[in-house]
């Protein structure tokens, strides 16, 4: 990102021309800009102002290893800048908590602690989720190629993994939302498994 404005500056005339073209032409698929005056930069800036929140979710999961699709419900908690917790309720209930680089899985006596950087794929998944919530574009770019579509009232973010271990397992993550709120996260894995998480707000910000 840091090199882009510099290039713009050097080839200022060309950039101005392209921007003018973008303003008049209907170009909804233009990466990172979207249409109108709401783009990736604006979304990230808006997210960066969120200090935390709590939301409910409902997740539909089609896993190649499971005989039937699974439906899970639970809560998400976010505290800026680096704390997230996903709690699944019901029979398959369990908590996954990430704080900084440390991950805690399970509840009560049955807990496991691990370190995200010992598991590159986990680090990637955490980054997609947490860095989006925090509006941390630099971290996202470490793991993904990012594409932004739509505008303020209805935007779509698509992440395609660029690092080896992550790209082996994950095909893409698609996040949809309105304004600074996130409403859906769709994950597609390379073996055909996929899941769709719908987020409903239960406070300010997390979703």
């Amino acid at each position: 990102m840091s090199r882009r404005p510099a290039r713009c500056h050097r080839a200022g005339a060309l950039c101005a021309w392209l921007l003018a073209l973008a303003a008049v032409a209907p170009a909804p698929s233009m990466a990172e800009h979207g249409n109108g005056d709401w783009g990736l930069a604006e979304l990230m800036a808006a997210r960066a102002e969120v200090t935390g929140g709590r939301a409910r979710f409902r997740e539909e999961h089609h896993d190649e290893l499971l005989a039937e699709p699974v439906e899970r419900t639970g809560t998400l908690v976010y505290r800026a800048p680096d704390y997230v917790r996903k709690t699944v309720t019901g029979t398959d209930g369990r908590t996954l908590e990430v704080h900084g680089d440390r991950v805690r899985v399970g509840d009560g006596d049955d807990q496991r602690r691990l370190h995200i950087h010992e598991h590159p794929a986990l680090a990637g998944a955490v980054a997609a989720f947490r860095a989006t919530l925090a509006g941390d574009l630099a971290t996202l770019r470490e793991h993904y190629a990012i594409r932004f579509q739509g505008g303020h009232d209805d935007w779509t973010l698509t992440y395609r993994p660029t690092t080896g271990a992550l790209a082996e397992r994950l095909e893409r993550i698609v996040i949809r939302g309105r304004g600074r709120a996130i409403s859906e996260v769709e994950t597609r894995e390379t073996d055909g498994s996929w899941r769709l998480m719908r987020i409903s707000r239960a406070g300010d910000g997390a979703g």
Partner: protein
Amino acid sequence: MRRLVPFVVACSLCAALAAVLALVLARGGVDTDLTAFVPTPGGDVPEALRDELRAGLSERVILAGIRGGGVADRIRASRALRQKLAGQPGVARVVNGPASAAPDGLDALMPYRYLLSPEVTPERFREDALRRALAERRRELAGLLGGVDRERLRADPTGELRAVLRQLRPEVTPATRNGIWVTDQEEHALLVIESRHDGTDLDAQQRLLDAVRAAFGEAAGDASLELVLTGQPVFAVQSRARIQATIARVSVIGGVLLVALLLWAYRSVTAIPLVAVPLLSALVAGAGVVVALFGSVHGMTLAFGGTLVGVAVDYAVHLFSHRRSGEPAQRAMIRIWPTIRLGALTTVAGYGAMVLSGVAGLMQLGVFAAAGLVAAALTTRWLLPAIVPEAPTRRHLPGPAWLDAAPPRAGRWLVVAAAVAGLGTVAGHGDRLWQDDPAAMNPVPRSLQEEDARLRSALGRADMRHLVLVSGAGAQQVLRRLEALEPSFRALVADGVVAGVDHPAGVLPSRATQLRRREALPAPDVLQRRLARAGQAQGFRDGAFTPFVEAVEAARSRDPLTIDDLEGTPLADLVQGQLVRAQGRWWGVARLRGVGDAQALAARLADAPVPGVMHLDLKAQAEAGLVRLRHHVLGYSLAGAVVMLALLGAGLRSLREAGAVWLPALLAAPSAAAILLAAGQRLSIFHLVSLLLVVGLSLDYALFFRRRGEDALARAQTRRALLVCGASTLGMFALLAGSDLSVLRDIGRTVTLGAALGLLFGWLVSARR
């Protein structure tokens, strides 16, 4: 022109002697292994194992902390530094976070997981246990967003690889920020740099440290960051640099003072190189005989031995001082030779007593001092007179009139009173007498030691102090014994005696254990049946765990992993230095972390139900070694003192006369020690060796003070000779006393004090009745 010849000859002689010394040292080699000086009770730990322990512990590890700037700067610099250092010739490994800390290629262990995992029992593969494991895997599938490793999950649903890795990972890990190790408050980013070179190869370590600093300079970029380096290689290199700098400073300043003193006293430039000839001869002979007898010379022998033969400087001074107008040097030499000979012989006998100690380092020291002093005396007698310029330029030596003053009549009683007070002070200090903590003698500055402790605790790398050694006829027996100790280790941890135990059987189980685990694995059809029911209950589709069934079947016929198979696997690194072959036996090394009460630990280990177990407290061993060394030095020095009296008696043909020389010389040592103690110091082995030099110097002073049968001129010459001897010694060692290195400071203070007292006592008893 003719007057220049002796000067050139003397200078050439010095250069030749220095060259021979360098050659002898290069040929024989200088050891730095301190154990040569530490007497150990016979045969408990083989030498080879000691070497292995030292190499495996900390000698190659540099700890680095990056501070200053912002957190992001420090983390970026840590990444960049690791990148720049990785692959440099002197660097074995750079670790700056959990990702780089994990040994490479752990996947190679995957096929052995059912033999290595401590969790493997028949119960683990029953239907109910499988059902619980699969329920856990199903919950894991939920994840955060996805990205779960499905291949691993299918092949290892019971999580055995995870159980194996848990055995390998240290329990204490540093805090991290963005995958980079940091101290708890994040004010340092932390790295561990492993050198490829031996800890003793100081030049290589120096190059590595320079490379690290250069790489850091580039890695830091514009950020105002600071690099802190600690660890054994850093300490060793820094100490060497500081000692060299101090010696260089003392040599230059002391050299200038000495030259000025000699020019003032003798008005002769030739005197300057000539004074060095006996000393250099002593060093050459000492080092040469030690190399011939022992194969090499120890660094400590050189340092201590060089101190002890320092008295040789005085021999030439006496020759210059005692010449009369127009007298050939040879005749003056013949007059003073009996005194020099008696002094040298007595000192040789005194120091030589250490040869009987049986401790390699002390034997070397005794041989070095004895050979060196004999050579110095012989050189003075037979070589110096031939080189000394023809006629002395002055009739009388300069010097103030008080030099010729007679001592007070009560002189000897003053000496006795001072000595009684000194001995009383020493006795009164009882248990506050000795400094036996090796750390207190550490030449590393306290601030750097504190920095090291801070980084070490942040990295969870507490200094390895307590070890349990388990020996056996073969590697397998050692591993079985360690496994038999496992319940004792667990009890120690449970009772809070230790925080944790790492041992090689935790990484590489014995063959017997691996075979027992293999027996626990169910047949494929049995496993398949149980798995089908458990999988159905948890909603997994058919065939989801086929790789698991195949892996268990393969493990049922897999040969156990043994130490011979480890070559090239990550386990080789982990077991290295922990499972060692030495003197035809195998030794397992268990490392105990966080030991609170060392005595309780020793008591508990003494009851261990396994033969061949030995508890090793490295710090206590080092302390006990120092105490034994001190006892040896003290004991053999006292024995040497008795021999000295006997020799003096024979040489002076009067026991009374011998006593008058011997007592003040000997009493200068405790009196100097008393002053040091009164100033709040404790006496270390360095003080003790310095006191030996004090006795040697004082003996010569006393002998010359009491020379009989001479006229007034001779007595005046003797007084002036002793003034020059004393001034040169006091000047040199007073400069050392101003050093900021505790070891050199201790030596400097002790010899300065002791030599001054020796001169004073010698003068006080010089009056004859």
